[in-house]
């Protein structure tokens, strides 16, 4: 049994990368970072000069094999923390965080598959951590990502996912765009439902591992649909973001 104490640390912001109009990735150097498993998250804490604090959780987007820790933040207009992270935080600033947190929603290549990843909006972030880990270790576990975004422009990591799938026949990415789509779009154009899941997922007798992440209503609908399709509940892991993040 591993004993640990997760302590608050000050990370250095070394790069800020715009991903989509509303999301940015923060590349961090965390002193004495002990590594993490794909799917885990960190807690970020902001402190105002008068001592007021706000804290939120963000999934780790980088692979455990990467040198630096990357968080991808979705800017919520009425959020308290996310607008600071996307609009104010700069290279050279420090960010207080603790982690890695959460051993339940994790995947390592040795856990096998086949792997079904279902993400809604910024719910794709921990799933991308899993995909990046899979690529970093050269795993050939059959993997499908079903990814719901509001529009083409809002697909996070779109180019990287295209590059990865071009090189790797065992990785498939299926998009659905729920609010608007390009003229020549031939993919799914609605919210994820049981019918779509049935078309995308493996048969239950292949015993897939499923990870579902996104807003709470999304996760609950997808989770129960998967169980309804015959997935073993113990092999469907969920991470709800709540109705709003922050």
């Amino acid at each position, binding site marked *: *049994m*591993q*004993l*640990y*104490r*997760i302590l608050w640390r000050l990370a250095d912001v070394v790069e800020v990368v715009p991903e989509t109009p509303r999301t940015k990735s923060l590349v961090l150097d965390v002193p004495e970072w002990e590594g993490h498993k794909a799917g885990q*998250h960190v*807690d970020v804490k902001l402190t105002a000069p008068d001592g007021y604090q706000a804290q939120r*959780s963000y999934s780790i987007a980088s692979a455990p094999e990467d040198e630096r820790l990357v968080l991808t933040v979705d800017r919520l207009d009425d959020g308290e923390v996310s607008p600071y992270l996307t609009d104010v935080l700069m290279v050279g600033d420090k960010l207080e965080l*603790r*982690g890695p*947190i*959460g*051993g*339940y*929603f994790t995947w390592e290549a040795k856990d096998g598959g086949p792997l079904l990843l279902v993400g809604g909006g910024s719910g794709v972030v921990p799933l991308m951590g899993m995909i990046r880990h899979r690529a970093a270790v050269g795993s050939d576990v059959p993997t499908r990502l079903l990814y719901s975004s509001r529009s083409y422009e809002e697909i996070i990591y779109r180019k990287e996912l295209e590059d990865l799938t071009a090189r790797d026949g065992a990785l498939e990415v299926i998009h659905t765009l729920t609010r608007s789509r390009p003229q020549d779009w031939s993919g799914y154009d609605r919210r994820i439902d049981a019918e779509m899941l049935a078309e995308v997922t493996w048969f239950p007798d292949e015993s897939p591992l499923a990870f579902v992440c996104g*807003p*709470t*209503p999304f996760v*609950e609908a997808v989770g129960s649909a998967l169980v309804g399709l015959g997935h073993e509940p113990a092999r469907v*892991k*969920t*991470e*709800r*973001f*709540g*109705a709003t993040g922050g």
Partner: protein
Amino acid sequence: MDELRLDGNAAAGTLGEVFSFEVTTAEYACGGCGRTGRLGGAMVYEVRGLGTIVRCPSCDDALIRLAHNRERHMVDLRGMRYLTTG
């Protein structure tokens, strides 16, 4: 359906302030209905500023109730028959 509820993982940071082991993979038995499971799959209600309540996904009984009162931690574990890392 409750949009405010999260998975056990969401409480992992807060629970990590109290427990010294990885708590989301630990197995609990619900004192109310007897259901067993891993805490990561339990339902979490983060009552922002007040506390964290972890509930059984079957019967909604509170498994763990946590509060931060300034520097002091308060933990109520009566809702579980046991919690094991084994």
